[in-house]
């Protein structure tokens, strides 16, 4: 066990300031052999260590189809994430264990319309899947991304969302909670825009959603109202974790290990689990 808990060193290739409190860390294993063997699927996560300060769980926010490096997008929210933001610079080294957990059901998504619904930092796990699907665009039908944040300053991946908007094969809808003078896009919370602006077709559509708990709660209600089958609604859970290996007992929800059986669950699965997430 103890060997499984020892991370491998990664170098920070680049730090991208996404918003005031979110940064994307572009990482590369120091050992090139390890980097070329590092394979992950959208939805999986890693254990990220700032040695001496602690270890945290973050999803990989980039796709394996964009080789050579991988991204973790980190919001300054607690003790270790504050240390990560304040102590790490480009070129510094961090420890990584992983990838862990299950992934978005890639086979099931093939041939379907995809609707991504993201809020705030919740776009990070979706971004991995979005990139993956864009790189295999022919496998999917309609491709819609609805992304919202509190304000325009809080929208992540600004450059990339621009690229998505310019991509004629994608439909991208951005929204912010309150109107701003310079904002000419949608205004309103994500579930509202979902029902009033996006008005998605239910037929042959899979919804993939992630965001703050409150957004997920109301988005699931909206999807219920729109008539989506809970089987076709996929989300990814955030739980406190330590080992990522199904041993430390921290991420248990009932008899489910979020680190092994999740973090990706369908709304149908969530309904059978105790509400402790």
């Amino acid at each position, binding site marked *: 066990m*103890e060997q499984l808990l020892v991370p491998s*060193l990664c170098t920070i290739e680049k730090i991208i300031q996404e918003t005031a409190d979110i940064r994307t860390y572009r990482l590369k294993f120091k050992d090139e052999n390890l980097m070329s063997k590092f394979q992950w699927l959208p939805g999986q996560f890693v254990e990220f260590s700032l040695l001496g300060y602690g270890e945290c769980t973050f999803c990989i926010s980039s796709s394996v189809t964009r080789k050579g490096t991988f991204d973790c997008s980190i919001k300054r929210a607690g003790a270790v994430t504050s240390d990560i933001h304040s102590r790490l610079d480009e070129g510094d080294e961090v420890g990584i264990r992983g990838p862990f957990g299950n992934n978005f059901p890639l086979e099931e998504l093939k041939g379907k319309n995809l609707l991504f619904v993201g809020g705030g930092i919740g776009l990070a796990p979706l971004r991995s899947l979005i990139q993956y699907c864009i790189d295999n665009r022919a496998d999917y039908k309609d491709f819609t991304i609805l992304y919202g944040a509190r304000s325009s300053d809080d929208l992540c991946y600004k450059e990339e969302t621009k690229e998505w908007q310019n991509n004629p094969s994608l439909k991208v809808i951005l929204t912010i909670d309150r109107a701003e003078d310079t904002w000419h896009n949608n205004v309103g919370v994500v579930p509202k825009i979902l029902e009033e602006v996006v008005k998605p077709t239910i037929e042959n559509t899979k919804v993939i959603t992630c965001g703050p708990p409150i957004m997920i709660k109301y988005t699931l209600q909206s999807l219920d109202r729109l008539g989506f089958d809970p089987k076709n609604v996929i989300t990814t859970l955030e739980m406190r974790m330590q080992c990522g290996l199904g041993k430390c007992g921290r991420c248990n929800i009932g*008899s489910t290990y979020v680190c092994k059986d999740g973090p990706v669950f369908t709304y149908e699965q969530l309904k059978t689990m105790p509400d402790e997430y």
Partner: protein
Amino acid sequence: MSFSTYKTDKAGLQKFYEAIIGACSTYAPVEKFGKYDYQKVAGLAACNPDSPIGNTMSIKPLFFPKSAKILKYKADSSGTEVSETTADPLAEKRVILGVKHCDARGLQVLDHVYKWDFIDTDYETRRNNTIIVSTRCDKAGEQCFCTSLDYDVEKSDAFDVLIVNGDNGTIYVQARTEKGEGFLKEHAGNLAAADGGAEEAMKKQYKSFEDSFRLKMNYEEINGKMKDRYESDEFDKVSANCIGCNTCAFICPTCHCFKISDERIKDEGVRYKSYDSCNNGYFTLMAGGHNPRPVKYRRWRQRAMHKFVYYKERFGVNLCVGCGRCAISCPVNISIFEVVKQVAK
């Protein structure tokens, strides 16, 4: 297959123990301030394999230490260096004497979580390299209820060698596993083969042991009812006195939650894996303040349901083995036995 049974008397058993201690690296209960803890011993005089269960720590720390070093690191301007720590002191070939049946069962229960998916190889090595010699209790403790659960205490194969006190000072020594059979072949030099009456005498001892239990429950009924009690108000009542000290988890032979923490002095440090408990308020607290189990009754519900429902659902065995240590050590007298009985009422 049937395994060998030997018989001896008190003096013979002591000789048997002495021979083991002389030949193998041996752990046994050692007394300190009236409490017993399993430690490496050099002679039988230093230990007491018949230590009373209520005052004896479980053998869990010999397989899952209270705190283990994961790595050492050094990080300065020239870069970061990570090194694994030194060899595992618990990996050597060893024998444990005076193991309680419930503790041995505890390891069988833990095997499931350590062997699914990622295999905990350290645990596996410690397990494979250990011979467990278990003495059957003659009388149940105040808080014991091992015979009420989902395992057969009498026919248990959780230990390699079983020792039973028969009538008139006769002591039976029986192999319970292949490993135990081989071990006895090697070390039972001074023991005589048991005669036909051995099984009968051991049964009789078990009967009198079984009759001595104060606490009894119908496990199937409790397990069945607990499944539907997630929303029960009783959790609030049974957990009201809990002060969150986590003693119950630390002394439990099957609690296996741990945390990973760093200790740093300037540019160097050590990362540890240490015991943790779901009764801690911060156990599920996430960065940003979200906590799925922010109140006591939710944490106690997790504890009781994990022991009696979730683990059984997941791995097919009950996580509580009925040793009663948590009830004995709890500063506010909460007993898991009473908790599940009340919730499943």
